[in-house]
């Protein structure tokens, strides 16, 4: 129990020193850390948003829309394919989340079925079957499969993540975290946000831009009743009115090469200048040539923001979006959104936590003060209670605290405010293993055991209790980590790491210190 061969002394000492060294970059002030080589700077504890200040947003995709969109685009394709195939289909509908139509002519049913089967085939060989096909009497029904929907959601979420990434990076914010969570959620964490509302508007905007012709042959009564003529639909305008537009878009946001914020040449109000890609530009030129004198609508996320009249063909491949009460900031945001592509799904903020940078700084300062005072208080208590053994405990305690920080830095874990509480709690609890041992030594000595025997059996007998008692804490910490979210995880992590390091320091480091002292000083009696 007290025999420590030289290799063991070295390995314990070196392990402790090495792990403690890992904590050093994290403890240095920002300016001093900047002078370190890169790999050393990388070994450090990240501060959670509650300490650094910033915004945490949990966004959830409205996947219901996605299913509808898929169905509608399949409807378009189906119409075209049936027409090219010469099949006369009736009652084509997307009711009830499925695509169905009737083929009146019996002779065309096989042909219709072939077309549908071809469309329902997986995009790649061995890919997921996205649609199931069934025939009921003279109707052919195409249903999206769950696997197909899931795959579509998955794909849409990947795209959404990239889009958000581009949008946030366009703001020039440092170190944002954008990760997917579960099937249909994205977590966005941006440190040091000044205006979380602007951030939310920016990343939440679908930014689906479309140019459509305005349907002019519509009566005010029809507009009022919301009954659009065939091939048209009624959309709200930015000013709060209503307008009828063609269902078919003449050009969409996917054909945009660039978008920048600019100013109107006449009245100087902010606007957004759009540059189309080559196909988009050609198409825009053709449509504007054909429709001189007619109004067209610029539609953003389902709202008509303006509907100017085409005065002359626009051949330069550029268009200007104005109106809609743009400010420089909102125009700039729209430009960023359009540049970064549209979100394939609508995202809604389901959880938001924003902490101001000042509060975060306060929390760090108070947390550090509390940690230091708590450590000092516990140290004083240990020394008063156990004397020399209290000093060893203290060494173990300080090494333990630094080792926790070192391990956290090594794994680049995030320190949160509850994490600081976990740290302080660990400082209190870390002495437990030492207390168990010291009390046991006292007890053995009281029973009349000699110094060596008392130390030996003190360490031996205490070890079962230390082991069992710490396992219970590990169970609690693991469950907290597994089930907890955000701040709880930070707490559980610190607690978990602290349990491991405190057992390590108690049964190895302090025991070694005691053994070395006994070997060197050859004490006749124990004062404990």
């Amino acid at each position, binding site marked *: 129990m007290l025999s420590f061969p030289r290799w063991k002394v070295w390995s314990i000492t070196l392990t402790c020193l090495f792990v403690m060294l890992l904590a050093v970059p994290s403890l240095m002030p920002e300016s001093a850390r900047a002078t370190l080589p890169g790999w050393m700077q990388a070994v450090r504890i990240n501060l959670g948003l509650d300490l650094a200040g910033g915004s945490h947003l949990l966004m959830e995709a409205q996947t219901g829309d996605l299913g509808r969109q898929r169905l509608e685009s399949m409807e378009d394709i189906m119409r075209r394919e049936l027409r090219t195939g010469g099949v006369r289909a009736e009652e084509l509908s997307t009711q009830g989340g499925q695509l169905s139509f009737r083929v009146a002519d019996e002779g065309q049913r096989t042909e219709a079925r072939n077309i549908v089967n071809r469309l329902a085939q997986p995009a790649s060989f061995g890919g997921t079957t996205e649609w199931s096909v069934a025939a009921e009497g003279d109707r052919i029904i195409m249903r999206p499969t769950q696997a197909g929907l899931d795959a579509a959601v998955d794909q849409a979420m990947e795209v959404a993540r990239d889009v958000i990434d581009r949008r946030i990076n366009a703001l020039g914010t440092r170190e944002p975290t954008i990760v997917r969570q579960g099937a249909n959620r994205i977590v966005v964490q941006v440190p040091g946000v000044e205006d979380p509302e602007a951030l939310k508007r920016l990343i939440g905007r679908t930014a689906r831009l479309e140019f459509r012709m305005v349907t002019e042959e519509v009566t005010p009564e029809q507009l009022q009743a919301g009954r659009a003529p065939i091939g048209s639909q009624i959309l709200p305008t930015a000013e709060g009115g209503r307008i009828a537009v063609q269902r078919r878009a003449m050009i969409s946001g996917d054909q945009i090469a660039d978008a920048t914020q600019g100013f109107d040449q006449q009245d100087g109000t902010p606007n957004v200048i759009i540059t189309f890609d080559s196909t988009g530009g050609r198409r825009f030129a053709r449509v504007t040539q054909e429709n001189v004198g007619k109004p067209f609508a610029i539609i953003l996320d389902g709202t008509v923001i303006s509907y100017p009249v085409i005065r002359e063909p626009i051949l330069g491949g550029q268009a200007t979006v104005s109106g809609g009460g743009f400010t420089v900031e909102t125009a700039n945001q729209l430009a960023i959104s359009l540049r970064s592509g549209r979100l394939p799904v609508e995202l809604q903020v389901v959880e938001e936590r924003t902490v101001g940078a000042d509060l975060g700084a306060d929390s760090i300062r108070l947390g550090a003060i509390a940690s230091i005072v708590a450590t000092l208080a516990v140290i004083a208590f240990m020394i008063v209670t156990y004397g020399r053994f209290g000093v060893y405990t203290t060494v173990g305690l300080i090494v333990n605290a630094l080792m926790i920080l070192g391990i956290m830095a090594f794994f680049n874990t995030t320190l949160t405010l509850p994490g600081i509480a976990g740290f302080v709690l660990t400082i209190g609890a870390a002495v437990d293993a030492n207390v168990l041992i010291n009390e046991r030594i006292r007890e053995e000595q009281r029973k009349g055991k000699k110094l060596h025997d008392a130390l030996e059996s003190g360490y031996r007998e205490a070890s079962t*209790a230390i082991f069992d008692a710490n396992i219970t804490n590990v169970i609690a910490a693991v469950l907290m980590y597994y089930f907890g979210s955000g701040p709880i995880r930070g707490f559980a992590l610190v607690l978990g790491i602290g349990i491991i390091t405190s057992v390590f320091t108690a049964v190895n480091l302090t025991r070694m210190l005691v053994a070395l002292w006994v070997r060197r000083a050859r004490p006749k009696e124990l004062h404990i």
Partner: protein
Amino acid sequence: MRLLKLVPDDTNIDFMKWRNLALILSIIVTVAAIALVAVRGLNLGIDFVGGQSVRVTFTQAPNLDELRGRVNSLGLGEASLQEFGAPNVIAIRMPLPEGGEAAAAQAATQVRQNVTQLHPDARFDAVETVSGKVSEEFFRSGAWAIALAMLGIAAYIWIRFEWQFGVGALVTLFHDVCMTLGFLSLTRIEFNLNVIAAILTIVGYSLNDTVVIYDRIRENLRKYRKMEIVPLLNLSLNETLSRTMVTSLSILLALGMLLLFGPDVIFGLTIAIFVGIFVGTYSSIYISSPVLVWLRVTSDSFMPKDPVSRAARGPRNESFDGAQV
């Protein structure tokens, strides 16, 4: 230097003498705690019921009535205003607005704008919005975590000791969690995600304490085959009393410093653990141990015929201590 001894060497308290009294008392208080939670409820934070919480620091203590009137006039539901650590720091809390998640996302913005109009130099320290869906998930996972922690730890103790000890641990945990919830209900401390962490910590700590005592009881059961259970429990409790006091006190010292000097945001978490340490220490003496009497634990429970506990004890000891002398 004379060393501090919290518990004198020859301490021999007859803890078990009051076990029936303690039991009645514990049952009364536990029932009262459950009743309190049932009747008065917990002050559930937005983590569990959804809604908005905005924390604002004003340059000086604001007129609360004016502020409340302004926020209520937004028609977002009844706002609750609370001082947060200092008179000029106010936490404004609002329920989930009607009209779904889109409306919820708007609500925080409106509050922010209105407060800024009233107090232009107000500083927004924190804005939190939790939707109904997410809060339900938090609630479920929190309940799961606590339930699993209790069962997991009890199962571990059952495996390592005997079934009576497992039951004892479970009863103890139930008591501790009830007491903590009762305390939270009584003081109206906001019940949020942090408090779940606190409860799990209490569960872990209380069991830590219980296990240390159980470990000693097991050791003594093996050592003193002929001793009656009640004196044996007393002996074990007295032998571990000094450790119990020193450890509890050092944790309370550390947490006390956090309460005094730490940031206000984690006050709820810290005070819950602080109180839980007292409850846990009491329960490991007066609940975990008497349960063993009622469940008739005897030294036979650890007779060598039981190969499991022996096998578990023997070899692990050696590997755990590293080098042997």
